[in-house]
């Protein structure tokens, strides 16, 4: 008996708690995952966030509406235009401004370019997460071209402060449309190349197919949005379902996960939806460029932003999902409260649900497929 007890105490196997992050190559920022592991198998994941908390919402209570825009840039730094746009839409709703046509078209072009740029980073870093390094540099190479366009547009390459409540800060530079179309022509074959290198690679499919399946109902219940939810086959895109701006004027599809390489809603589907979305974005940009009207982009910019007392919840389909700005105004030029519903925040909360039971390598892949940006989660 005693021997048995000793043997048990010696041979007992417990779970190991592994701290992944905040400094770790593939946590996409300063995310910390407390992982309980049994060998390679992960039994429990506790995401710990807040390492990048910069008091965005508190700042907003001290800044005027115009001044908040550069701060929204810094929330989702990979899709700054989307944040600007989302905030501007919310404020415009509060102010009840009618925008000139040209502004709306410019915004759509820019937002879709930004979506391509953001997805390129997402796909590239996802490749890095599963060990393929070359696709990352290819993706970054193409993203640089978009950033060049943005630099010509507003002088900045990452944090633009371009879309303002009521308009945009500058009109399009000369030849911008031509350069954009040139880029799209260049970009289409690059997607095929990317697919050949990564998406259809057998090892990649083995790593991602059937891994980390997110069932649609779980996704909705957790508030997962954007490509991560569409990967599960839920046809849910604000651009189609609740068209804001002028998205109802364009003809495009919402790519959904189909379970080509496994089950619907697996990591590969979440990844591939982004690839397909880049094509759809290109489609939208081509249409918008063709229809771009003339006009003054500064016409509707209010001299002073002083909304009436009230509140608004503005929604926007960003590269990561459903961004919401809940703004309470008390009639001053400074908002009483700004709450940002960040898509990556909700997307991350589902991680422990879908990644438990998989291996450490899979957790990395699943995390990569959710495409989080810590700046937005921690705000």
């Amino acid at each position, binding site marked *: 008996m005693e021997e048995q007890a000793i043997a048990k105490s010696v041979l007992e196997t417990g779970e*190991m708690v*592994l*701290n992944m992050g905040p400094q*770790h*190559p*593939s946590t996409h920022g300063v995310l910390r995952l407390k992982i309980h592991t049994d060998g*390679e198998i992960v039994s429990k994941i506790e995401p710990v966030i807040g390492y990048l908390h910069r008091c965005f919402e508190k700042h907003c209570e001290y800044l005027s509406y115009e001044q908040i825009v550069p701060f929204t840039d810094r929330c989702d730094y990979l899709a700054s235009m989307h944040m600007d746009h989302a905030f501007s839409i919310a404020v415009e709703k509060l102010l009840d401004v009618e925008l000139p046509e040209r502004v709306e078209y410019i915004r759509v072009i820019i937002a879709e370019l930004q979506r391509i740029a953001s997805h390129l980073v997402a796909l590239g870093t996802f*490749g*890095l*997460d*599963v*060990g*393929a*390094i*070359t696709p990352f*540099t*290819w993706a970054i*190479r193409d993203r640089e071209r978009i950033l060049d366009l943005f630099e010509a547009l507003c002088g900045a390459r990452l944090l633009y402060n371009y879309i303002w409540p009521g308009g945009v800060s500058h009109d399009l530079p000369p030849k911008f449309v031509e350069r954009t179309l040139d880029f799209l022509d260049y970009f289409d074959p690059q997607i095929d190349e990317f697919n050949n*290198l*990564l998406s259809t*690679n057998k*090892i*990649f499919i*083995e*790593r991602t197919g059937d891994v980390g399946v997110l069932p649609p109902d779980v996704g909705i219940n957790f508030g997962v949005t954007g490509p991560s939810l569409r990967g599960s086959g839920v046809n849910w895109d604000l651009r189609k379902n609740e068209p804001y701006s002028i998205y109802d004027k364009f003809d495009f599809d919402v790519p959904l996960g189909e379970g080509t390489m496994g089950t619907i809603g697996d990591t590969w589907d979440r990844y591939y939806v982004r690839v397909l979305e880049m094509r759809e974005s290109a489609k939208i940009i081509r249409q918008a460029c063709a229809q771009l009207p003339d006009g003054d982009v500064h016409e509707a910019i209010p001299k002073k932003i002083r909304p009436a007392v009230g509140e608004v919840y503005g929604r926007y389909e960003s590269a990561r999902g459903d961004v919401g700005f809940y703004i309470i105004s008390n009639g001053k030029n400074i908002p009483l409260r700004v709450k940002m519903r960040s898509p990556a925040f909700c997307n991350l909360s589902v991680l422990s649900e879908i990644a438990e039971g998989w*291996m*450490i*390598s*899979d957790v*990395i892949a699943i995390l990569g497929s959710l495409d989080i940006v810590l700046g937005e989660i921690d705000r």
Partner: protein
Amino acid sequence: MTSIVDSLVKSFSSFNLDIAVLLPVITLIGGTVIFLIMAVNALIAVYFERKISAFMQDRLGPMEVGIFGFKGGKKFWGGIGQTLADAIKLLVKEDILPNNADKFLMILAPFIIFTGAFLTFIGLPFAQNIVISDFNIGIFYIFAMSSIGVIGVILAGWSSNNKWSLYGSMRAAAQIISYEIPIGLSLLLVVLVAGSLHLGDIVQWQADHRWFIFHSPFTFLAFFIFYISTIAETNRTPFDIPEAESELVAGWMTEYSGFRWALFFLSEYANMLIVSIVASIVFLGGWLSPLQIFNIFPDSWLILDGPAIGLFWVLFKAVILIFIMMWFRWTFPRLRVDQLMYLCWKVFIPFALANLFLVSLWELIF
């Protein structure tokens, strides 16, 4: 076949030196030669690895650092001094040992790994007669010595007192031990046909008959099993799960820095060279010229089979194999642990076993 040690002993014999003096001298010379080979190999291989990866990724790679002001090519192949500068940087870097690490083992581990690679070179022929010491069981010796490294890997992972290191070392142990089986089986097949463990004899057999890779469909398959398994054995992508940098930070090397880390690095690239040379000797005809395959040249051309030409052919074949390794690395994603094991136990080992059986049949029939 004579070895370098043999010829050294012969040349020193005229001095009538005592064996107690002669032995250290010869050992020192041999050791220095091996160390130089390893160091130069790492310097060159790292440079080309960086350049190849850069070009495959539409980058330029190192372009700035030169040697004595000479930077290399202006457009693409610049920065030839980069790896040398990196090596110097590594040597003068602060050596950090974590507080709670098992210091003795942690210091010991890199040397064990290095020793494993180092010892392998003793039995590795670079060409006819260019071998430090000519074993008649050469293939067995190389196979045995190259497995020593895994002890160091496990020690390094355990002594670092870091969970990532532990994961890395455990993965490495599982992987290296598993992949030794298909490697062994593929080599066994060659030994079976050639009837000798001596690498010189194996090459001689290929000279007499034909290269092993073309000997039969089964040896052809065996070459690929051998080659892919050796990639796994040297922990390179797509089998680099022990140091998977996106998962395990740097695996068992996480806590190492400076010179100790440089030793790991050196051994990694030395291992690449070793397996490529072994593959080229065992399957690709070693120092035999590829031109012989076609048998279209007059016999007088075969004079070109001297040691220098032999060295050229061995290195040529090895370099191609190394390039393919690098090519793999910058093309593929990484496998998962269980998939790696699946590949080994459910694909390679059955194929290798079947190969062994079928090649015996082949030998019986033909």
